[in-house]
Structure formats: structure tokens, C-alpha cells
């Protein structure tokens, strides 16, 4: 997993609340293996009309934001279905950070596991950042994870993130390697658990 420390990039505003994982990646693309390029179908039904033409006023379709690496979203971004492929699509499109007042729980956890920073700011700060980048789409935004700050124009904003998620992103940590170092504890737990809850362990060793 790629480390995330500091990112300077353009930011694209998408302020509607409740952009759920179905909207991020419609179900019909779930069959796609990841290497087919999920970025091209990110927000598929928001980006294109039923005839397949781009909807001009959708922010991602505007030339200025084509190369944005930061998304400034509304409340409850990534709520709904647990599909991790929604995170793949956001990441594979080129986004490295989503700034929003809140995230779907599972989306936020999946984000960390894929090197995508889900930065939580207040409603007011999200609105202010979105307004600033709408006014000046060329403006570069700086996201600093160790400092937990976002610099946009002459203002600096703090953001929240779970400490676990932060250290994983900063270090590019892999959960599985980490868990393997707990193998002895897992074995001890299992032995004791088989005595304590044999009814739960019926299919265990």
C-alpha cells in the first residue's frame, strides 16, 4: 500500500450529501476485475446520461478538475453498500484524498486499507473549501496528514481521522503482516475459547 504523508493537488467539489457507494460505483460494474480500470466508471450514472454522453455540469467532467487528486464531498460520503470496489474506483480514478463532513463507516475503513485518505472536516469548513475551489478551480490545496491540516488559499483547516487509520496511511502499513505477529495470542485465545464456548466452537478443531 502506498504511503500518504503530504499531498499538493487540485481539488474537485462534489457537495451533495449522501453520495452512496451505489452512486460511486453502480452495481453493474461489480463484476469487473480491478485491472479493467474502475476509475473510468467512477460515478458512472452521475457523470453520463443514459445515452452515454457526459453531463457537462458534473464537476468531474469540467476540464479544470480532470486532474484533481482531492475530492471535497458532502455529508455521509460512501454510505450504503459495503462494496470496497467503490473505494477502488475513487482511487483508480486518481483521487488520493476525500474531504467530507462524514463518511459511511465501511467506506472509511476500506479507504484506509487502500491508501485513500478520508479526512473529516466540519460542515462549515467543507462548504468553505468547496466554495473556494469553485471560485478558483486552478487553486492547489495542500493536505498534510502528519499535521492533520488542509491548506486552501490563505486558510488552514484541521481535519479528523482515526489515529489507527492515520498511522496505517502514514506508514503504508499492511494489516495482515501485523496480525501475523500476533499468531501466538490467537492460538492461546482459541484454546481457551474452545473451553469457554464449546457451542460456538463446534466446527473448530
Amino acid at each position: 500500500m502506498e504511503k500518504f504523508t503530504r499531498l499538493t493537488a487540485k481539488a474537485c467539489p462534489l457537495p451533495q450529501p449522501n453520495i452512496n457507494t451505489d452512486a460511486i460505483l453502480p452495481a453493474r460494474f461489480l463484476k469487473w476485475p480491478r485491472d479493467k480500470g474502475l476509475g473510468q466508471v467512477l460515478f458512472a450514472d452521475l457523470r453520463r446520461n443514459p445515452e452515454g454522453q457526459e453531463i457537462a455540469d458534473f464537476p468531474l467532467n469540467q476540464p479544470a478538475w480532470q486532474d484533481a487528486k482531492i475530492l471535497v464531498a458532502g455529508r455521509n460520503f460512501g454510505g450504503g453498500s459495503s462494496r470496497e470496489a467503490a473505494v477502488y474506483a475513487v482511487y483508480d480514478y486518481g483521487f488520493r484524498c476525500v474531504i467530507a463532513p462524514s463518511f459511511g463507516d465501511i467506506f472509511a475503513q476500506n479507504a484506509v486499507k487502500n491508501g485513500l485518505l478520508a479526512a473529516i472536516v466540519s460542515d462549515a469548513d467543507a462548504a468553505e473549501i468547496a466554495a473556494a475551489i469553485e471560485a478558483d478551480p486552478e487553486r492547489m490545496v495542500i493536505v498534510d496528514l502528519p499535521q492533520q491540516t488542509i491548506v486552501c488559499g490563505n486558510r488552514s483547516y484541521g481535519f479528523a481521522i482515526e489515529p489507527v487509520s492515520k498511522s496505517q496511511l502514514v506508514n503504508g502499513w499492511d494489516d495482515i503482516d501485523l496480525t501475523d505477529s500476533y499468531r501466538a495470542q490467537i492460538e492461546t485465545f482459541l484454546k481457551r475459547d474452545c473451553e469457554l464456548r464449546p457451542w460456538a466452537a463446534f466446527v473448530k478443531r
Partner: protein
Amino acid sequence: MRQRPQTMFDKLWSSHEIAQREDGSALLFVDRHFVHEGSFHGFSQLKARGRKVAEPNLTFGIADHYVPTRDRDRPIANAEIAEMVRKLEQNTGDTGVTLFGLRDPRQGIVHVVGPEQGLTLPGLLIVCGDSHTSTHGAFGAYAFGIGASEVAHVLMTQTLWQKKPKRMRIVVNGEATAGIAAKDIALAIIARIHADGAQGHAIEYAGSAVRALSMEGRLTLCNMSIEGGGRCGMVAPDATTFAYLKGRPYAPAGDDFDRAVADWSMLPSDPNAEFDREVTLDAAAIAPIVTWGTTPDDALPIDQRVPDPADEADEARAAYIRDALDYMGVRPGTKLTDVAIDRVFIGSCTNARIEDLRAAAAVLAGRVSKVPGLISPGSSLVKKQAEQEGLDRIFKDAGLEWAASGCSMCVGINGDLVPEGERCASTTNRNFKGRQGRGARTHLMSPAMVAAAAVTGHLADVRPLLAGRKA
């Protein structure tokens, strides 16, 4: 020293904790891991690392998301779908995981099959790469949906790192009136707390109206915890739970069962246990509920009108309502009962259990549906039972299609879709834009309310239709 009173969630958490990290997250042991066709990402990661499934005996594969609901005795016509089902067969076969495959008589929706087989038990930690895993909490289990990387992690280690959520209790007191189903209670709760209301919380449902629910009703209630923003929901195990479990294929039997019941009886929250948040509802005040918009909290009693953005002071809210009504093709201020429908769907992990089908049949019996519709039972065993009870006859006589079991028109990845622009009265859990198909308009409601919509051709209050009938 006396221990501090604990909530059921605290007990579930501590009984699964293997180790803690400095940052406060814990490594938890996973008792049951359900995998479905979509879990192929997790199996790919397993293979890429050259690993084995850590506990194949605690892992169960179920084909549900992509399976066709028609022509099940033939090879799957759609090549992509056939490939998804084949991948699951191969991944489970290669790793020694039990599969309830397409032709298995026990096949069905993972959240219906788990309880039905007695794989879902009180006190367990259950995960699946599907957000509606919250369903299994109905038994007093800690059950939640996980992402593909977490699926891979569980496959390889049988554990999961989790940060402990806060505790929330939703109490539904009093007695629900006739014709009110668990789905109405679930929608009333979500309308009250909003779609992100329980975010970061483990929900415990309590109160006399929850206690009075059957296991089927509790499963429906916990199923929709995710629509209220919670990752899990749970109901304390009691006599209803134990009676349901007794004799189930994978449930403990004989002395083991008695010992289990003794253990399970210790699970409910201690008196005076503290919750971080409490919400209380009065069951007697809950009417049949339908959604009008594009999130599950856009829910109102059937005797109301859809909102009018002109009445809304908050401009952002007004804009949202305008957009939702525009998508749904409903004029502001329309009476809900004036909204005509194009089709109905009864199915999904929310409402496709035998009791749900009986509730729909009670309304449909001797009546004809004014619109086409599909009924997909929650499992192949539910299908068989419904046919033994003659429910299939009632559905077919009403002009509805009786199909095989799967996720079907809830998520639409198997090809069962609502055509663009059509309006569907649906027992599913999500009314997001495009959820049941591109441009599809979904109204969520209970199975009885879907049946009422079917026989009247519009959204309708089921209560008068039940007069003089066995509900």
C-alpha cells in the same frame, strides 16, 4: 469488587478480544465468516500472497448476489454471471470451504440461510462482505459487514482489527397495532434518527415492541441497522431465540444446547448498563410507512403527503427534496396514496422469510394484482415451505411471478431490474437512485404494504385490506 454493569455489546466485544493495540483498536476473533460471489477480490488477495484459509470450518460460501432467479435447472445463460458463480465454486473448493451452491437445496440469501441453518447463534462474531450482515444481530450476535481487504484478512487470519464503537440503545415501547410490521418499525426508526444517525455506534434494540417480534421480525429490524448508519444492530436472546434455534442443522444439540442456552442467557445487557445514546419510540404511534425519496430516511406514514420544497426554510434541504422528487417523478405535496405504481417486488434479505411471504399472501389471497411483480423467496428452503403452505398458488393466482431465491431485484446484479422510469413498491432496504436499475424508482415498505400496493395499483394503507382476514 463488583464489576461495572455491562451492555450486551460490551460482553460480545470482550469475549472476542485477542489483543489490543496502543491506539485502542482490538484484534477480534471471528466465529463465522460468510463469503459470496463478490468475495472473489478477497480470495484473489489470498492467492496473491500464497496463503491458505485459516479456518475453513468457520467459513461458509453461499451463492446469492449473482444467481438467476429463473430457469435454475439450466446452465446460466449470461457468461459474466456464470463466471461469478463458477469463481465462488472454485475458490471455496480450492480452500476447503463448505459451499451452499446454486444447486444446493439449502441455497439462498446469505442472511436468510445463516439463521435458517443454525450457523448464526447468540454470542458469535459474524462477518461477511455485505453491509446487511447486521441482520444476524437479531440473535444477540455481533455481526457486521466488511470490505474486500477485510475479507482477505479474515480468510488469512480468522481475525479482524476493530475500533470499539459507542453503544446506542433504541427502545421501542408499547404495542404495535395490527398491520404494523417490523419493517414499519425499522423505517420509523430511520426516519427519526436519519440515514447517518447511528454512525459509529453499535445498536441494541430493546423495549416491549421489540421483545414481541418473532425472529423473522427481529432479523428485518437488525437488517436495516445499516440504513440508519449503524454497522451492527442486536436484540438480546430470549425464549423466542432459543425456540427458533432448537433443532437447526448446525445449532448445538442435546446437552450442548442446554449448556449453550445457559451461556446465551448471560448475554443480555445488565440492568443499569450505560449507553452512550438512547432513542425511544412509541410502537402504538407507528403507522404503515413508505419511502417517498431516494434515501431510506425519506420515510413517512402512508396517510401523509410527500414534502413540498416550497415549505422548507433550509435551502439545502429544499434543493435535496426537489432533486429527490424529480428523480422519483412525484409532484411536491402529492398524497402518498395517490402515487400509482408500475410493479412490485417481494424479496431480499430484509423481507423474504416465510413470515414475510405469509404476510403478503394474507393480503393477496383471492385478489388480483393490478401490476406485474416478482416474488423471490429468501432461500430455497423458504421456497419449498411456501409451496407446501400453498402461498405460491396465491401469488400466481394474483398474477405475480414466483421465482427462485437470490438477492434478485434488491441490488439487480443478477439481471432482475426495474426498467428505467418505472416505479416499484419493494420490500428491499435501499431506495437509492439506480439501486434497482438505472432510473428505477423504489418505494420501500413492508411485504403486506407491497401486497396492498399490488392489489390497488398505488401506494395504499394495508390495514383496511386486512379487515376480517388473518394477518
